């Protein structure tokens, strides 16, 4: 394990180095800290978007899931995100980039100027993302323990301190560069391994045929009803256009065209990575390692049996990169919800730039240490909770955002109602107080849309000034 450990330590040291280097430029400016001065190029942004979305679950988890639940069900879970990208590219990217602020809260609080929007939206983000960060830290701890032999607690303490240092001091500039490196690493490792697997057999279809003959369940839809996949699919399809760490990336682009193109390219890369992982690496795992007790080991088993030590070390770094690239983006988005959306809203222009810089750093440390404390003894079902957390954001933010950008009759009453009703319905459905036999996110999105219609019908019409401002975002 020495090679793997050395590579990982070098990699983490590099991340800290980038954070410290970036801090000299970003700490004195909100624009630099939250959106990297809005000058990130299309390719770099695309890779960073892909890396922010592709968590540890997208490498280890997707292959483990395909191994145990079959290819169709696994692709159904991940295809939702792939559908979410066109929604984001067509429905929100141009308008939010033209809006020229930092966060989804900025837009919603402008479109629906009410205190409940200004403070409820970041509160929902903090709750959902803290759960998400804990789940990612748990994945990092388990991965480091399994791959490097480092004790779980030591691994997550060390990893969390690395995240916090480079996110809190380097802001969006640091996480863009680290995410780009992490995204490239993931893509090279997964695509490279997949191509090597297919090359040996001759074609992807031949590989698939061999695997499904040996293990027919790989190609079948087993275990769960389609409704459960549908819920997950809808959550990710509707989350991508409004999820804060993706929206912040849209704002880092040089212009609206760059924002849209980077989302499109990120979608291509993400889709290719998931398809290659599931269709080329998992079949080899199923053929060579049937009956694995821990299905999540399939990727590492394949890497171990098919590649030399150095490549295995790079693969371990790629898995940790996947975990880190999502966690750092979540940490920045979560600290922006506290420092920019909530405290920035309360303090207004009264706080100096130096005070705001301290608040930004402090927010990242508070969120990071809180998540670390929770991750040291995490609940068993944390992985399910984080999907529920993302579902809460989709259910509450999707309708008011899309209607606010596209529907001229969307107004303050409709916006507030759809936000509150979407969140409340989702929570009631998740707790099974409201049980209609449909996925909670589907019920909540429908309730949120109805609330928007009712609010728009009975509330005061939107002012011409607001409609002109929204119209300008479409140019």
């Amino acid at each position, binding site marked *: 394990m020495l090679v793997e450990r050395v590579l990982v330590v070098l990699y983490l040291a590099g991340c800290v180095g980038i954070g410290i280097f970036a801090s000299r430029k970003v700490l004195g400016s909100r624009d630099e800290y939250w959106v990297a001065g809005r000058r990130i190029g299309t390719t770099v942004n695309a890779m960073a978007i892909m890396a922010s979305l592709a968590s540890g679950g997208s490498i280890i988890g997707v292959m483990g899931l395909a191994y145990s639940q079959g290819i169709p069900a696994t*692709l159904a879970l991940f295809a939702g995100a792939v*559908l979410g990208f066109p*929604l984001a590219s*067509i429905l929100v990217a141009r308008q939010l980039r033209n809006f020229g602020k930092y966060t989804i809260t900025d837009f919603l609080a402008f479109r629906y100027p009410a205190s409940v929007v200004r403070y409820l939206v970041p509160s929902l983000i903090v709750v959902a993302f803290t759960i998400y960060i804990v789940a990612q830290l748990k994945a990092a701890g388990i991965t480091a323990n399994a791959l490097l032999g480092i004790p779980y607690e030591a691994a997550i303490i060390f990893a969390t301190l690395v995240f916090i240092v480079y996110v809190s001091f380097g802001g969006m500039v640091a996480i863009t560069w680290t995410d780009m490196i992490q995204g490239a690493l993931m893509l090279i490792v997964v695509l490279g391994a997949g191509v090597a697997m297919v090359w040996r057999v001759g074609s992807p279809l031949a590989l698939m045929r061999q695997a*499904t003959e040996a293990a027919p369940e790989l190609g079948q839809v087993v275990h769960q009803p389609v409704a459960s*996949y549908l819920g997950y*699919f809808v959550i990710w399809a509707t989350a991508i256009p409004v999820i804060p760490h993706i929206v912040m990336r849209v704002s880092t682009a040089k212009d609206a065209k760059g924002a849209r193109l980077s989302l499109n390219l990120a979608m291509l890369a993400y*889709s290719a990575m*998931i398809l290659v992982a599931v269709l080329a690496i998992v079949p080899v795992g199923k053929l060579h390692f049937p009956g694995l007790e821990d299905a999540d080991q399939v990727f590492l088993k394949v890497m171990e049996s098919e590649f030399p030590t150095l490549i295995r070390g790079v693969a371990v770094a790629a898995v940790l990169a996947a975990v880190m690239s999502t966690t750092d983006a979540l940490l920045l988005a979560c600290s922006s919800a506290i420092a920019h959306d909530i405290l920035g809203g309360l303090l207004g222009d009264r706080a100096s730039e130096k005070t705001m810089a301290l608040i930004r750093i402090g927010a990242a440390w508070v969120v990071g240490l809180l998540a670390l404390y929770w991750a040291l003894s995490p609940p068993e079902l944390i992985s399910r909770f984080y999907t529920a957390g993302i579902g809460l954001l989709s259910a509450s933010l999707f309708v008011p955002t899309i209607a606010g950008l596209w529907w*001229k009759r969307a107004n303050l009453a409709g916006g507030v109602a759809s936000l509150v009703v979407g969140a409340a319905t989702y929570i009631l459905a998740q707790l099974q107080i409201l049980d209609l036999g449909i996925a909670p996110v589907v019920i909540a999105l429908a309730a949120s849309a109805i609330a928007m219609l009712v609010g728009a019908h009975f509330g005061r019409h939107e002012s011409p000034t607001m409609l002109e401002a929204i119209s300008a975002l479409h140019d």
Partner: protein
Amino acid sequence: MKSLFPMRRSEVAALLFLIAFSGFSFLPVWRRIEIAGIAVFGWLMIALMLISPVLTLFVFLRAERRD
């Protein structure tokens, strides 16, 4: 449709196609039929993951060229 801000026809068509394709893919019948060892539902998901990025990129680039 006067109550909506205008959207390019190609983008409306792409969105409607992708949403309809997704709905079609989730029909229960596709779970039982298999082609080359994989349920049709799986093939449809593979197709969605290929078509979605390529179609959106094509629509975007075509619109940019026209502008």
